[in-house]
């Protein structure tokens, strides 16, 4: 007398397929979401802290960056966004803004004057390119940037975070000019004053 089976082989095959499809779509969703979430979570882990950086191979166009103290300050950590002021000496005009989007992460540059008003050139940046990882995201210039700064339409910003370093980099297709600032995450420094236009 054979043992009764709860479902036929045909049923098993259908169920297996359905389960496999479910597992695949879940995995695909994880692959699509996880890097951006983990990337922002890695940054958010530094919320409230400030770090000193240095420019890699400064050029004669980077004298201020080479000469001044460079400090990044991770602050404004909301559920879906982070604000990272980037101070160059006493110049507190720059803030990098990283925001979670449906597809990945958006990088914008918030430039302010000392009185808090917006610079004419501000809010440029772009959305993360497909293929970003939990530690590195590329942000090609978006159409807003192309309209605002036509020459920057092929800019690509890169933000990289590892357990020891935070890197901000700008390059452009068709050029080997690399603007790269590396921050040491192993040595927090005193928190700087708020960026221009923000409350302490």
């Amino acid at each position: 007398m054979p043992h009764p089976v709860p479902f036929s082989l045909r049923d098993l095959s259908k169920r297996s397929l359905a389960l496999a499809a479910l597992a695949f779509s879940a995995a695909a969703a994880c692959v699509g979401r996880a890097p951006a979430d983990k990337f922002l979570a890695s940054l958010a882990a530094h919320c409230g802290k400030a770090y000193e950086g240095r420019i890699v191979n400064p050029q004669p166009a980077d004298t201020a960056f080479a000469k001044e103290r460079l400090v990044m300050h991770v602050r404004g950590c909301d559920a879906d966004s982070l604000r990272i002021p980037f101070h160059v000496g006493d110049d507190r005009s720059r803030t990098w803004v990283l925001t979670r989007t449906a597809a990945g992460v958006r990088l914008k540059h918030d430039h302010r004057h000392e009185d808090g008003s917006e610079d004419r050139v501000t809010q440029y940046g772009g959305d993360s390119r497909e293929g970003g990882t939990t530690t590195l995201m590329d942000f090609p210039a978006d159409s807003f940037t192309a309209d605002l700064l036509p020459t920057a339409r092929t800019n690509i910003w890169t933000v990289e975070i590892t357990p020891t370093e935070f890197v901000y980099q700008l390059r452009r297709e068709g050029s080997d000019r690399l603007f790269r600032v590396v921050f040491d995450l192993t040595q927090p420094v005193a928190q700087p004053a708020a960026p221009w236009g923000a409350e302490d």
Partner: protein
Amino acid sequence: MKGLSCRWFLLPLAAALLMGVPTTRAAAQAGVIRGIVTDTAGRPLRGVEVLSINFKRSTRTDAEGRYVLARLPWGTQLVMARFPGYRAGEKSVSMLDETTPPVNFELHRLVQLIDTVRITSHDGCAAYDIAGFECRRRAGIGQFRGVEEIDALRPLYWADMFEGLTGLRRKAYMSKQGQDWTVESTTGWRCLMEGWNGRHKTAADENTMPRDIVAIEHYDVYEKVPAAYKRLAWPNGQDKPCALIMYWTRGFVEHEKQR
């Protein structure tokens, strides 16, 4: 299982070795491009930089204008020859084997319109307009490079724009990201400051790449800096006066034209 996976790996490798597939040769050897660089009269040009754009390898011509670019991978190479005062030449070369023919360049000299009337001061020149650049250039105090010369150099790195300017030299630099270049003063800058379009650097200028630059002015010592720019070379709070480089950007100049 181990034996099976090894067999699957070794069999194609052995077959490839026996058949002598091109990848094996490519890995074992490297290509060489040779040639001569002359001016339009056929005179050899010495010191011309010849570079493989896609593989970031460069060399310079000797006294006979000859160059050898070695250790290049097989395939298509984009080769450029550039020299200050000449329009850069660029050629695409298919390197399939050792019989790659010589790749010669004939560079065209840029026509320089030099005004023979020299003025003794540049302080009367417009400070915040590109017109002032030509005025200061005619005055002859400092080093200058205009749009035609910069475009002819086809700058990829920032330092490329300074190639051949009196008192400055490019210096190779190896970083984690590969080879880069920097600029040095042959006499040594006490310190260096920069100006952009006659003023301080702005947010827009931070996104500038070499091909956005249409003119450069270099004042190696503070004493040569035009009066209108002295505050840039010696800002309040700084302990000493500096040398100055002034950049003029394409975006600024075009914006000014529209106005």
